[in-house]
């Protein structure tokens, strides 16, 4: 073909590339615009696809028609080499103004097409949206589920701000959770209490102490039942009376706030103390699942009780009046130790 003929033919023959989106619809796009996307470019070069309607390039799942339209707008502007940096920046600033949902979809689609400049642009925009917002605001913007438990929410932050009590609490929570899981495997009866994600601090601690299926509580009361059978009632009430001094001792020790000392001082006494209180103010609860804990050895139960007491005491070492309340009050209907951890009251 002579050069003159070529020159005449060229302007009329604009090349198009055929693209198929996830919903099956096919459209044609100017070649230079489509080739701006590395993924499309690669498909054309390597497989030769896209030259006609029947051989349309199938785009990744995440690219739907409206998003594809946006991407092609971006490509159409930027593929022109003569544009100045200022022009490009102005275009980008305007282009990025869209609602968050679309922005996320666009990010995802641009990533699947390997269009790095657009991914950078959208990432920057998303970062700007997130920056400075409170967690609630961010959750609302991105429709994130608020599915962390109270202590999980605290865990990473608290670790960072260095609170040894919360660290200990976390460790014990983890251990408790593990043990409770084991116990639940052995459970035959008793559906779980409905696990509500929005737990208050009180709920959390009762979860630790009493378990979801009243496991620990039943455990304790079981112990009580057994104990009641063996020693005489007098012995029990003596214990209660005798332990009053220990109550004072423990509570005063607590008010000094020396968690370490307490740990050494009287772990056994304290747990026995609580047990005896539980025994005294006999709960009006049914313990039909009292048998289920037979498989657990008493040593572990003892240990669990001790640990619970330990951390509860530690947490409360700054709140002597709470501690007093705790030791003197009987257990309410559903909770044994209504301890408020400072700061956990806020969600």
């Amino acid at each position, binding site marked *: 073909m002579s050069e003159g003929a070529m020159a005449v033919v060229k302007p009329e023959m604009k090349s198009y590339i055929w693209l198929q989106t996830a919903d099956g619809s096919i459209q044609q796009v100017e070649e230079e615009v489509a080739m701006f996307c590395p993924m499309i470019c690669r498909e054309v070069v390597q497989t030769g696809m896209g030259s006609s309607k029947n051989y349309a390039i199938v785009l990744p799942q995440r690219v739907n028609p409206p998003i594809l339209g946006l991407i092609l707008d971006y490509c159409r502007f930027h593929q022109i080499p003569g544009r100045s940096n200022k022009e490009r920046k102005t275009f980008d600033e305007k282009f990025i103004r869209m609602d*968050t*949902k679309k922005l*996320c979809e666009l*990010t*995802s689609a641009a*990533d699947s097409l390997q269009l790095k400049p657009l*991914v*950078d642009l959208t*990432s*920057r925009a*998303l*970062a700007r949206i*997130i*920056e*400075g917002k409170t*967690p609630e605001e*961010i*959750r609302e913007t*991105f*429709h*994130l*589920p*608020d*599915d*962390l438990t109270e202590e*999980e*929410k605290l865990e*990473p*932050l608290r*670790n*960072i*701000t*260095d609170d040894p009590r919360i660290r200990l609490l976390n460790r014990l929570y983890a251990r408790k959770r593990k043990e409770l899981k084991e116990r639940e495997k052995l459970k035959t009866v008793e559906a779980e209490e409905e696990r509500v994600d929005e737990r208050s601090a009180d709920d959390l601690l009762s979860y630790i102490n009493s378990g979801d299926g009243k496991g620990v509580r039943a455990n304790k009361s079981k112990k009580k039942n057994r104990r009641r059978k063996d020693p005489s009632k007098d012995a029990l009430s003596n214990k209660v009376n005798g332990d009053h001094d220990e109550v004072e001792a423990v509570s005063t020790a607590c008010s000094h706030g020396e968690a370490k000392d307490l740990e050494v001082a009287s772990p056994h006494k304290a747990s026995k103390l609580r047990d005896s209180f539980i025994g005294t103010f006999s709960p009006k609860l049914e313990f039909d699942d009292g048998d289920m804990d037979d498989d657990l050895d008493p040593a572990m139960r003892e240990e669990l009780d001790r640990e619970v007491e330990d951390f509860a005491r530690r947490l409360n070492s700054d709140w002597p009046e709470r501690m007093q309340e705790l030791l003197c009050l009987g257990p309410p209907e559903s909770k044994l130790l209504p301890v408020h951890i400072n700061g956990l009251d806020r969600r």
Partner: protein
Amino acid sequence: MDDLISDLPQSILESILTRLPIRDAVKTSILSRKWRYKWASITELVFDGECVSSLHEGSTIEGSLVKFITRVLFLHQGPIHKFQVSTCYLHSCPDIDQWILFLSRSSDVRELILKLGEAEWVRIPSCLFSCKKLTHLELSSCELDPPPRFKGFLCLRSLSLYRVLVAADAIENLIWNCPLLENLALSYFDDSLAITIRAPNLKHLYLEGDFADIFLENTPLLCNLSVVMYMADDMAEQFELEQSSNCNFVKFLSHAPRLESLAGRAYFAKYLSIGDDPGPLSITFDHLKIIELCEVSFEDMKEVLVLLRLITSSPNLEELRISAGANTSPAGAPDSLDIWERECPADWTFKQLKVVKMTDVDGIPHEMELLKFLLGSSLVLKTMTISPSTYFKHNRMDMLIELLRFRRASSEAEIIFLQE
């Protein structure tokens, strides 16, 4: 309503989290279950004074910051490519050693930036030198002591040392042993440093401070050079006596033939002028487009000569900025104006010079000769901007009259006289 963002690919989420200040990134851990540890695998950790906003009772910003950084490092999982701490609140503390040890152990760190408070010097532990993959190192207010068998950072491209205590030969060896080094910035070493730079790949060099001597021995690819050189006056005299034969100008610039921009401030012109005049230079700076020289003393004939030689060795110069220095102690006869006729090559023309800017002009003879020379030889000059100095106001009219007479080689040249 569906979650919009949590299921995006990890690379995108990381890209977003990296663009957040570290405090916001860490706070994403309480958004939802999926987000709990997304922040923990970002590869760039940048800490500054903003990380800790609220102070706890009995703690300082420094203490909180140290705790924050340590905790983040501890909770972090995966490679760390960039670690930056830039805050004036932090001074030398043992935790810094541990952070660097931690980073050097995983030996993936590529960029390390420590810009700390200037009150104390942090002694950098030797484990820094086992970070094999370092490409970018920036230290300030530190004490550096490379171990004797240190083989260099083989991947290092950029090195910046500000107020760093290090021996001259240690620094020279460090530079020499980093074969890929392209950017080098050395500022404010404690003593007057005499330094020789051998860096075959060096492209950008920035020097600031009190240097006793600078020798670019092996910098063939250097394209940007910026020097702010301070020198005590007595040092200058000492130089004159010691190195009367060696010409600093030649020594300094002859090994940088590919220079594209040159900026010299404070005593730089003076430094170059020390030594005997070498005569017309044998090298030409064909790529040199921008020259900026500050504090050139136009009463010192030697400095004027340096300037003259420099610009007549740069045929492709496009932009020239000169500021005249305070003319306090003229050395040599100030009226030897014939050097302009003698030393300028005959029929010299600037074929690319478009912008000339001259500030603090007093109107003294050498200044006027320079302007005359430039106007008469710049074929495509567009603007010549002249700002008079705040002294010698009575000379202005004379200066302007003289300026008007000068022949202009470029018909498009505009002379802009800025009054303050």
